[in-house]
Every structure is written in C-alpha cells, then in structure tokens.
C-alpha cells in the first residue's frame, strides 16, 4: 500500500496540522528564550571576556562568587529590595484597587491618574528620583530646611540605609499602578449579588472582604504578585540610573552587579554566573505561584482540592 505524501498527511491528519501550527511558536521559544538562557548558563562555566573566546573552567566562577562579599551583599540587597518593595506594592495596590472600585466622583479620571507612574519611561522617572534625592539639590531637603525642620541636607543617596530606602521607594512608586489596576480588573469580576446576599445575612464590610473579595481575588493576586516579584527581582534601570549600585555597593542588585562585571569590566563569564545565580530564586517565585494556582479551592471552595 502506498504511503501518503507529506502534503496529503498535512491535509488529512489533524495531528500533523497541529504540529506545523506549533512550529513557529516552538522556534520562537527556542531561539529567543531557550537559546539565550542556555548560552548564559554555558558562559557562566567559562572564563569568556568581552571580545575573547573563553575556555571551560567548570564551576570556578561560582567558587569565586561563593567567597565574594560583594556578590553576597548584592544577593541580600536583591532579596531585601524584592521583599519590601513587593509587599508594599501589594498593600498599596490592593488598597488603591478597593478604593477605585467604589463609586466616587471623577472615578474614571482617578483611575487614569493611577496609571501615570506606569507610563512614564523608567529611566526618566529614575532620573527624577535621582534629582529628588540628590545630596545637594534635593527638593525634600530644601523644603525641610526652609521650614526650619533640619539644619543640613539629608544624605539620601550617600548613606547606605537612606539609599536603600530611596531606591525601594522609587520602585514602589513605579510598580503600584500595575498591581492596583490589575487587582481592580479582578474586583470588577466579583458579582455584586454576592455582596448583597452577604449583607442581607448581616455580614460586616470586613467580613465581605475576608470571605468574598479576598478568596475570589486570590488567583489574580497570585499572578500579579508573581509578575511583581519577577520584575522587582530583576530590576536594573532604576538602580543603574539612580545609584549605579552605590554607595559602597549598598544598592547593588544581582542584575546591576552582573552588568558591571560582564559589560563594564569585560568579564562575561563571571557576569553570566551572577545572572545564572538568579535563576533558582526566580524559579522559586514561579513555583510558589504555579502550585498555588493549581489549588482549586481558591476558586471553588475549601473542600475541592
């Protein structure tokens, strides 16, 4: 019996057709996602420098990083930055979403205004914050001095603690709209009849939130916070434009240290190792969300695991 040709199979075999429809997506994933990731991991096991092919050095880059206090400081900074900024972005974003979900005058305009920080280019807002927190020309220091509340300028970006606070503040300012608007979209899907029924049963506003809003919002919170954590963990532009990792590396994140070592200092292998060291943290963040989303009880009640 004669076998069908490729074209005939494609016309009649749904599996073949499905395969060919998937090819562009697979190619995209392989060339633009898997290949760069694989190349980065491979580079981390070499001593490649800018402009010079490297040799395989096994785990040497990681061994040097293991004893590198600046690397560990960048890990600490990254975790602190991510945890504090993400938590505050969630709290403020949720509060804003609940507020904007209420009936109030100028609701549409207020919702649009919340988006402003999100639409300003990151570097532009970072430069604005750099000026706001400038050691000599800070508008905050200037105002407080003129109000007689301080005698000399606050050393915002020159003091390690202040510098960390400032970059976290800037990140929160920039990230809140994403959380707020996405949660607001989630809130819009909650049926008002649920609240009406609960109110008839005598539920308080807190009980409405605790037993209706929060459970129904949980899946979207999981998605939003996963993205928020990923964006914050891998942040580069804000830090680079505001502090370049200073003072004394107090604001160096893993991403900025990786850039400094790989591109500025030319050590591609070592920079790639720092980048690759971010992968376990990022995978952990994704896993928390992934397994969380699998829990159907979030959506369908406590007993439907």
């Amino acid at each position, binding site marked *: 019996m004669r076998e069908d040709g490729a074209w005939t199979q494609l016309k009649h075999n749904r599996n073949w057709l499905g395969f060919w429809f998937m090819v562009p997506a697979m190619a995209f994933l392989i060339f633009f996602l898997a290949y760069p990731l694989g190349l980065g991991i491979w580079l981390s096991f070499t001593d490649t420098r800018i402009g010079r092919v490297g040799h395989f050095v096994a785990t040497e880059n990681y061994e040097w990083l293991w004893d590198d206090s600046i690397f560990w400081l960048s890990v600490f900074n990254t975790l602190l930055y991510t945890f504090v900024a993400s938590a505050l972005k969630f709290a403020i974003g949720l509060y804003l979403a609940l507020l904007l979900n209420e009936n109030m005058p100028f609701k549409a305009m207020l919702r649009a205004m919340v988006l402003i920080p999100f639409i300003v280019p990151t570097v532009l807002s970072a430069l604005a914050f750099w000026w706001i927190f400038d050691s000599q020309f800070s508008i905050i220091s200037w105002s407080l001095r003129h109000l007689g509340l301080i005698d000399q*300028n606050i*050393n915002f970006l020159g003091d390690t603690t202040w510098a960390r606070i400032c970059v976290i503040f800037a990140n929160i300012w920039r990230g809140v709209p994403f959380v707020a608007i996405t949660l607001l979209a989630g809130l819009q899907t909650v049926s008002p009849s649920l609240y009406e029924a609960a109110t008839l049963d005598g539920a308080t506003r807190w009980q409405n939130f605790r037993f209706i809003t929060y459970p129904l919002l949980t899946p979207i919170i999981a998605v939003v916070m996963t993205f928020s954590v990923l964006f914050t963990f891998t942040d580069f532009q804000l830090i680079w434009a505001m502090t370049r990792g200073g003072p004394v590396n107090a604001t160096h994140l893993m991403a900025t240290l990786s850039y400094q070592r790989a591109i500025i200092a*030319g050590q591609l292998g070592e920079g790639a190792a720092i980048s690759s060291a971010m992968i376990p943290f990022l995978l952990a963040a994704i896993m928390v969300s992934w397994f969380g989303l699998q829990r159907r009880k979030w959506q369908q009640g406590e007993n439907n695991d």
Partner: protein
Amino acid sequence: MQDFTRRTLLQGGTALAATGMLTGPALFDFAKAWAQSAPWKAEPGAKLTVMRWKRFVPAEDDAFNAMVAAFKAATGTEMNVFSESFEDVQPKASVAANTGSGLDLAWGLHTLPQLFPTKVLKMNDVADYLGKKYGGWTDAAAKTCKQGNDWLGIPVATNGGYMTYRKSALDKAGFKEFPKDFPGFLEMCKALKANNTPAGFALGHASGDGNSWLHWVLWGHGAYTVDQSDKIIINSPETAKALEYCKSLYDAFIPGTASWNDSSNNKAFLAGELYCTANGISIYVAAKTDASKKELAEDTYHALWPVGPVGKPTELQLALPILAFNFTKYPNAAKAFVAFMLEKENYEKWLDGAQGYLTQTLNGYESAPIWTADPKNAVFSQASKRTLPAAGIGTVGEKAATAIADFIVVDMFANYCTGTKDAKGAMAEAERQLKRIYR
C-alpha cells in the same frame, strides 16, 4: 548618527570661524594635500563608522566635526560619527568587539584597546609616523596603548583633571596659594569647611572623578594595587595610611560625596555650593561661557595635584585612546583618519576648541597656543606628562582595566570613609576582589 557632507563642512567652518580656526576651504585644501601625500590611502568606497564620547565642550565638537568633514571631502570616505556618554562608550565598543561588527573606530577612555587586544587593528605604523613627526609620545600615553611592541590604539589625548577652586574661599581660609603637599591640602579642606565653603570629591561610582582622585591618594602614599610583576600588594601599611588620610579629608568634605557620580561636582561647584574639587576644565569653561556666572569664572582657578609623601606626582588622568577594529573593511581609511586627526593643522586647532579639556600626548604640542591663551589653562598642559598609566606600576592590560572599571579602589576608600568597614576589612575586600581579577 551623523553623515558628513560638504554642507556640514561649511556649517562647521562657519561655527569655527569665530574662534579663528582653520576652516572651510583652507581646511579642505590642507586635507586634500595631506590625503595625496599620506602613507595610507583610503580604500575606494570606504565607509567608516566612528563612535566617540559625547563632548563636554561644544567648541571641541565643532572642531572635531570640521576635521571629519574635511577628511571625508579629501578622501571620499563616507563618515558616520556618533557620540555616546562616557559610561556607554566601553560597553558599546565591547559589544562591537564581541560581535565583530557595527563599528570601525571607537574613541574611548582609560585602556579601552587593552580590553580586547585580539580584536584591534595594530597601529604601529601610525604611532611611528606621528611619534617621529611630533617629538615622541609621553610615557603614560604609550603604556596605555602598547602591548609589548604593538600599538593597540593611538592615545589621542588626555583629559586632564586638576584642582578647581574658588580663590576667594582660599583667601578667606588664609591660604595665599594652593597647597603643594598632602598635609597642607588636608588643612586647607578643614579650613574651607570651617568657613562653610567646603571642598568635595566624588566617592561614589564615578568612573572618571572617583577613580582619579582616589588613585592619587593611594599612589601618593606609595601604595599600589599590584607591583611590577602584577603581584597584589594592596593590603599594606601604606594603603592603611592612605585610608586614614582619605577619611580625614572625607570628614572635611561637603556631605553626600559617597553618592556622587561624574557630574555631581560640576553641578555643585557651578551652583556655588562647592569651593574646591578635582575636575577637567569643563567647570571653568561652563562658567566662562555663561554670562550669569561671570564672577564665579573670575574667582575660579586651577592648581596641580598636591604631592604625597612619596615626593613625586602620582596623578591618574583620563586617557582617551582611539582604536580601529581588525574586522573593519577599510583598515587604510581608518589609519589615515587617525593620523589625520593628530596632524598639527588639525590638532592644535582642535586643542584650541577643547579650551583645555584635551591635553596632547605628543611632546611636540607642548607649546600649543591654548596653554598660554588663558593663564588658568596652563596646569592642564601637564596632564599627559604627570600622569601614571591606569595600572600604576603594574602591567597595563585587561586586568588593570577591569580593576578600574570594577571600582575596586573607589569601593575600598568608600567602605572605610563611610564607616561601612574598618581599615583591615576594606583592604581585605579590595585584596580579595583583585585576586579574583588577577587570577
């Protein structure tokens, strides 16, 4: 990206005419004659893409552009020139080196050609031609660009950074002249602070300003990152003394210097908040060209860096080398352009346009008119002769360049001055980082 045409040349000429430079037809005639007799003939249909650092003095840019336009008109070489900020030149050159495309020439900072020695076009013939014609190269300039007997690039100029101060503040503090040694300099900084006219030097990740003054403090005490054989010697009693001295200075500075980048001191000085700093001549030029800052310009003076306990100048000035990539399709055009840039008819006028921001690396230009045009320019003429190469007494190369780019010395001083680490801890961390780089 800028494409130079005859119209550009004439426009550039108009702008330069005001400063009495070789312009328009005269520049074109010189370029044409030069192109006919030059050792390098541009390939037919040559097209060069050139990246340079973004100018700080507009007239320098005008002079450079006029030179580029004249070269294009004389040789028929298509010239695409674009500028990048100081910080972005090296990463973009590195990407070009890594990918083997995108640029023909890159004009950058420090020891740029040493970062990728296998990717650059050897410039031995150009260096030999210019060196013989113009009195030889300064020592640091040659070390910056040479690897063994090969020239990896051409040291076009040095951006000299010197003490920039307000004379009225020094007078008020009781100093008739700028101190010439370290103790005197510290006393001056303390006196300036006491009068609420403070000094301030960048202690943040400032590639130019931070690295230059902190290496000066380090080397001035006889301390170095590595010795002549690249053995790491940063953890030493001399470094400890340098840290102590720097801490005393830091305490006398205007608050906030730990966050300063390369532009911070310019802003503070021009705003009247800062009375002494180390910088290129750009602060003075900016004040001179701003009518509202006439008094500030008149009160602004320059001085050589004080000499440390070692008894000799220990300056780190910003080298500005140009390199051609070996993957360029037009090596002769690239060499011709570099040689053309440094010919007297171009170079002295270019120095003039830079108003002291650029200093010659060829000894023959020591008597260039710019250094006597304004007495306040004079100290900047010393930059190429007084500076040490970026490696100090060690080997100039990719490791030394990495150490500078990674802010090892800056972070060591900043750690100690801000109280983040004690002296032992700061030195130990720098030592560990240097071991990582020099492994």
